[in-house]
Structure formats: C-alpha cells, structure tokens
C-alpha cells in the first residue's frame, strides 16, 4: 500500500483538473458539469477531441494543447469517460469543420466514443473516431486492429493535431491519423507493478527479478517473461520483437519515442535510448527523430515502452511540427528549441 497524495478517491479526477487549470487558466477552460477541459483558443479547423480513463497522467489531461487535442474528456480512474462527458467536451470546441475523436482501443473507450459520435451525428455534427492500437504485444499482426492503445497515442494525436492545424478537412485528418496509427508500434517492459491512483494498492503481483514484456498497464499478461537483465539485454529482446513486427527495412525513416513509467527515471530512460539508437543504426534504419519523455505513465510502475513510428513524407511533414501543452511539449524539428 502506497500513500497517495490525494484528498479523497471520489474527488481525485475533479481536483486534478482544478489543480491543472489553476496553473494553466491562460490556456484552458473547464467544460461545465463534467471532467473535461478545452483549449481557450478556438481555431476554425477540424476539432480533435481525445479522452480516456484517468490514472496514467500526463495522458490524457496533458494532451490538450497547441498542435494536439482541442479538448479532453477524462474518465474516472482507468474507466473510459462517460458518453455524455465526451459530447460535452466535443461541443465546447469549435466543431464547425467536424470532430475527430482519437482514443485508445479499449472496450470502454470504443463504446463511449462511438456512441458519442453517433449521437453527435444525429444532431448534424460531423464526428469520426480513430482508435489507437499500437501495443504489438496485445494481438498478432493479422489482428492488428484488436491491439490495445498505449504510449503511441501521443504521436497519433500530435500528427493529427498538426494536420488539423494545417487546415486539412475531416476526411484527410482522419486518414492521416489512421495511417499514423497503422505505422506506430509500441512494446513495453514492466519491471515492477504500479499502484492504483485512488487507493494506493499494488495493481498486481509480480515476481521480483522478472521483466515482463508486453504487459498491459493494469497487469494484463504480456508475451513473455524474462529474468531481470541489464538495460541492453532487455532492449535487445524488445527491439527484436518490435522490428520484426514493424517490418522496417534498412533505409526506412522512423521516429522513436522512449516512454518511462512512474518508477523509472530519466537516467534509466537515457540508457535505454542509447541501446535503441545503437540497434537502429546497426540495422541501417534511419532515425529521423528520437525523444525520451514520460507521457503515458502507469503510476509507480517500473518499466518503459519503446514506440517506433514508420515515417513517409506525409507523416513526417506533420510529425515535425511543434506541439505544446504544459505536460506534453515537443519542439518542432525545423527550428530546434521552438515549440
């Protein structure tokens, strides 16, 4: 049992949003009567709305921002947001060019986002859904659309956000988001279990000295278990699996995102990244960009994930754009250091 620095399990999502807005009231408004936030700025463009269960912050509260989502509907801990909440957030954006919902591919999210899209369409509002399914461990390649979504949603959103900012229409933004989703493949390694954000209970039990590859963030079993080994050994095993799944030939350009879980520090992530870079270089795969962040963070868990995004010219164009939210900041690649 871990003492969580909260006030009451029932209020955590509401109070989290209040605290986030307290620091960021210049950028965001609260959506009335629900757990959601929207950008104050209402550009005339396809609106991007995301959401999902709370608990792996900064996903999803931190994914509303410039070049990202216009609004986020935040469910209770690990529970998809209610349909009503998604609709309220969607309606608080500028939806005249239509709404693209981007969520992760879990039953609850799919059910609620699809229902929200149907209900909005009944009101004459254009709404589509893209469900991110980047977790290569959760289903074999032939059933890739059954895969769960994990850290990769960060990049799908960022690319869709840039495409929307560029003025593309709903069909095109949807296509690009779907392509980004097809091209992004993520695999995770878990070295110790996380804790429920609301109760502080260990989320599951795990043998010490084990690494589980491809485990779901709530402890869903992964594809294999190994004895704990050094960083390089873990990365080697993961990259083997991931590259086999990705089928990226030498010369192909990729973007790399190393994402840390709560208990794993930036030092470890850099050491992981070092090996990822070495392997890609050995294989002759071209690293267009590489970044280390903590954007999808199972709280208190030890581990990390590696996301590889296969790029083509179209995706690259949007990938390269800057993105800014207080919790998800990525400089543009054309002028380093400028978000």
């Amino acid at each position, binding site marked *: 049992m871990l003492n969580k620095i909260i006030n009451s399990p029932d209020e955590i999502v509401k109070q989290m949003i209040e605290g986030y807005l307290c620091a960021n009231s210049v950028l965001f408004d609260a959506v009335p009567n629900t757990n959601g936030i929207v950008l104050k700025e209402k550009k005339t463009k396809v609106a991007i709305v995301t959401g999902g269960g709370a608990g792996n912050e900064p996903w999803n509260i931190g994914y509303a921002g410039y070049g990202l989502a216009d609004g986020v509907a935040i469910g*209770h801990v690990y529970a*998809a947001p209610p349909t009503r909440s998604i609709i309220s957030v969607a309606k608080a954006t500028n939806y005249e060019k239509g709404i693209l919902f981007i969520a992760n591919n879990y039953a609850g999210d799919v059910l609620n986002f699809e229902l929200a899209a149907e209900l909005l369409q009944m009101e004459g509002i254009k709404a589509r859904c893209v469900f991110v399914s980047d977790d290569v461990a959760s289903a074999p390649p032939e059933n890739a659309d059954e895969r769960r979504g994990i850290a990769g949603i960060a990049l799908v959103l960022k690319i869709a956000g840039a495409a929307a900012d560029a003025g593309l229409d709903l069909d095109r933004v949807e296509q690009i988001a779907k392509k980004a989703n097809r091209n992004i493949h993520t695999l995770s390694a878990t070295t110790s279990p996380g804790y429920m954000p609301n109760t502080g209970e260990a989320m599951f039990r795990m043998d010490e000295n084990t690494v589980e590859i491809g485990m779901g963030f709530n402890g869903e079993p992964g594809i294999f278990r190994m004895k704990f080994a050094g960083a390089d050994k873990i990365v080697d095993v993961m990259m083997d699996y991931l590259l086999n799944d990705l089928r990226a030939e030498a010369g192909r350009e990729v973007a790399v995102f190393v994402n840390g879980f709560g208990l794993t520090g930036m030092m470890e992530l850099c050491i992981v990244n070092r090996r990822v870079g070495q392997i890609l270089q050995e294989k002759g795969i071209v690293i267009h960009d590489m970044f280390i962040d903590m954007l999808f963070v199972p709280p208190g868990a030890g581990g990390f994930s590696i996301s590889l995004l296969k790029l083509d010219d179209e995706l690259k164009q949007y990938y390269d754009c800057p993105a800014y939210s207080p919790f998800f900041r990525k400089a543009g690649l054309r002028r380093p250091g400028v978000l």
Partner: protein
Amino acid sequence: MKNFMTTDELKEMFLYVSQQVIESEKFLTEIDKKIGDGDHGIIMSLGFKEVKNQLSAGNFYCANEVFKTIGMTLLDTMGGASGVLFGTIFISGIVGLEPVEHISLPEFAGIFERSLAALKKRGKANIGDKTMVDAFEPAVAALVEAADKGNSLIDGFESAQGRARAGMEYTRQCMARFGRAKSYGRASIGVEDAGAASIWIIFRAMAEWMRTHL
C-alpha cells in the same frame, strides 16, 4: 402478495438496488482487479450513488421514467465499458414503450428482453464470452418463461436472480473474449466476470426487495 408494482414502489426498489450495488464496491473491484483494471466496483458505485440521488430527488409518473432516469444517470456518470452497457440495459428496453404506471412481470420481461437485444447488438458479446451477457441473458430468459407460464412477479424474479447467479458462476469456466479481461486469455479461466457479478447483484436485490415489500 401483490403481483405488480406501482411507479413509487419501482423507485423504492431501485433505491434499494442502488444501495446493494454501492455496498458491493469492494467485492466487484476485487473481481475486476484479477482479470481487468479494478475499476468496475468503483464506477458501478459512483453510478449508483448518483442513481440514488436522482431517484430520491425525482417524482416519477410512470415506470418508464424510472428506467430512463437510471439508464441516463449511469450513462452520464459511470463511463467505462459498463457505463454504456448498463445504460443500455435500462434505456433500450423502454424506447417506444407506452407509459406504464403499474408494472408487472410481462412488462419487466418485455423491457429486459429488448434491452438484452440492444446490449448484444452494442457489445457484440454472446453467451460464453465471459461478460455480463452470461448473467443477463439467462435472467431475462427466466423472466420471459415465468411470464409466459403466468407465474407471479416474485417467482419470476426469484428464478431470474438464481439464473443470473448461475450465469455469473458459469463465467468462471469461460475464457474472456471482450474487454480488458481478453488479454488474460486462458488465464481468465477460473475467475468470475465482474459485469456478470453486477448483473447478479442487481437481480438479487430486486428479488429481495420484492420478497420483503410486496
């Protein structure tokens, strides 16, 4: 013993049902933690807390309104897979139904039969997939059979809650094919399904209330 319920009684019964669900939070969460993400009890309890508020605060002139209020409240507050699914269970059965002031077994059976169809359409799960369908479908079948035979309201629900329970127990032997539990594959065998457990808790509470109040 009365063989029907007034709208007020229906409301009272669902207040009792809500309380039973709320008190099962830990139990449901424990189940969901084994092969899910541990939120089921929490969101069921959050949803039914709000159902209690809404039912207590409202005046209802027909059973349809009671069902609709419960369904919309669950849909609006729970989230998760089960928010939509339990919302569907309470809303879809009354769509297009004439106002019912006194509800008896055939109406219950008809409402839940329609909502079962909607649930299966939305969630795509069938018997054996280790979902709430495994408890709900036999419970509904029991209501329909009892109504067809002209059995009493209370008999219908006693039988329904028994079948819901059997359905929940049956989920133990199934391998999950939907929701987060699916990731557990064969490891999901041996554990009940959380949603099926919720269905049983609801039917058990309805039967209990009827037994003591009608």
